[in-house]
């Protein structure tokens, strides 16, 4: 388990001013989960992540991994600790003078593995990431996605318990991103490795994370189940971050008509969404005018948003809204009602 305990990091910049990159961040990351950290550029995501393997020392608080205060490690202890944590990067950071196989072997050499073991395991790892046929080429002949696969093979070479990903897909096109995310998910499922993944794209979070932490200006503003954060963002910053997913634009004149409630219905896959809307029509004598809708997939679970206008008598409207609230994930009236 990774525990951020009131972690703060400040730098003095070139002008000598203090920059508080991370401010009093506390949360836990469970074993085996995939947790996303999102936030805008400069939010302190990388800095926080780097305290997990002491690439960065906290200036306040501590980062604890499996009961060990990371900041207290040094020398051989720190080196051994780092062998148990893999890391992949936006720019891949492969050694350009080593072949693909040598890059993977390098991680194992560092960890003091025997030649025999290295010779046995490197082909297995390249197989895992689908690069068995590129073992002897140099990184500069690979595509971005392939480079990141080498990075992943290298990062998991020593059977780490934790994999840190700093914008690992930000330099890749959408399709390659999906491939890499699928590979990460597979690794997580197969080996139970805890994955901490930084990204500025909520799309990435949606695809593979179970939980998400949102950072803004060095602070943790929100953390929770991806589905919950998605459907009920608490913090304004999160709402802004999510706005492109959730703001289904409807013409303003519709929101002004306060006799006809404009309702946003959010439902997840476990509810029989179609029947619910049909029931409103059938049971309450209310007309339902569907204005907008879309389905998102979060962790492969469908997550639907529907914007409808309800037309009917006040009593019927009240009843149907009541019914909707009880039977959907969330129902929200977008215009003011009297």
């Amino acid at each position, binding site marked *: 388990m990774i525990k951020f305990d009131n972690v703060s990091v400040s730098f003095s910049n070139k002008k000598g001013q203090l920059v508080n990159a991370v401010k009093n961040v506390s949360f836990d990351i469970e074993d085996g989960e995939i947790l996303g950290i999102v936030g805008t550029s400069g939010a302190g995501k990388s800095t926080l992540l780097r305290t997990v393997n002491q*690439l960065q020392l906290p200036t306040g608080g501590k980062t604890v991994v499996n009961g060990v205060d990371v900041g207290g490690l040094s020398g051989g202890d720190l*080196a051994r600790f780092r*062998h148990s944590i893999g*890391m992949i990067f936006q*720019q891949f*950071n492969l*050694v350009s*003078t080593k072949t693909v196989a040598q890059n993977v072997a390098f991680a194992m050499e560092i960890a003091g593995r025997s030649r025999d073991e290295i010779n046995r395991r490197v082909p297995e790892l390249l197989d895992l990431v689908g690069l068995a046929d590129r073992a002897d080429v140099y990184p500069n002949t690979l595509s971005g996605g392939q480079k990141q696969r080498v990075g992943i093979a290298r990062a998991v070479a020593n059977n780490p318990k934790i994999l840190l990903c700093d914008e690992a897909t930000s330099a890749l096109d959408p399709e390659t991103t999906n491939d890499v995310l699928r590979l990460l998910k597979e690794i997580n499922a197969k080996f139970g490795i805890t994955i901490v993944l930084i990204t500025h794209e909520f799309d990435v979070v949606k695809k593979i994370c179970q939980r998400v932490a949102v950072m803004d200006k060095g602070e943790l503003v929100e953390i929770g189940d991806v589905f919950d954060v998605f459907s009920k963002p608490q913090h304004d910053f999160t709402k802004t971050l999510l706005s492109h997913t959730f703001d289904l634009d409807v013409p303003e004149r519709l929101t002004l008509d306060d006799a006809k409630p404009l309702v946003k219905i959010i439902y997840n896959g476990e509810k029989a969404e179609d029947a619910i809307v049909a029931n409103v029509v059938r049971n309450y004598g209310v007309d339902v005018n569907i204005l907008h809708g879309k389905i998102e997939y979060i962790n492969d679970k469908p997550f639907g948003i529907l914007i409808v206008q309800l037309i009917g008598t006040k009593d019927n409207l009240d009843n149907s809204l009541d019914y909707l609230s009880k039977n959907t994930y969330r129902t929200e009236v977008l215009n003011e009602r009297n």
Partner: protein
Amino acid sequence: MNETNYSDLFDNLLPAFGETLEMCGIALLLAVLLGVPLGVLSYITAQRSICQNKLVNLVVGFFINVVMSTPFVILLVLLLPFTRFVVGTSIGPEAASVPLGIVAIAFYARLVEGNLHAVDKGVIEASLAMGATWFRIVTNVLLPGAFSGMIRGLTVLAVTLVGYSAMAGIVGGGGVGDLAIRFGYYRYQTDVMLITVLLLIALVQVIQTIGEKASRKVQK
């Protein structure tokens, strides 16, 4: 203008060429043996580098700067006692190799340090994240990454040393450059000066070509 005795000149030219090669060769060897470690030391002990050490960094930097900012002729003279101590004499090509070697070490250390700085910092960070020691990073990442640049640096150094070696005549070092000065400059034998200078240009050209080829060959 004096009459040129060409057979006399060619009798002088061959040994002089040998002396130039000897002086520059020894200096180059010293540069590789000591300049590389010094350059590495300066790089890794710098602030925020992989083996930070203020004192060592200061001392190394000071040595390099002093040697590089002192005019070579003055260094030549200042180092006379040291030269005598090391090679037993302060005259001849071996003696001239000492100050030349020291300049070469300092000069090459700076070049190497520059080449190391050009190595991707991200890769160093990745290595640190894997738990690599500074020594492993130096041998596996930094030196291989800087290798082609270091060969190019060696070329630059060799060319510079050919120039410096001409001044070695002051301590009786001999060499082609010395010949050019003695015959061509002091005795106003323009043709001799021309021949020796052409020879130096040819030497430099050969070094440059070899260096470039080698550097390109090792580039990944």
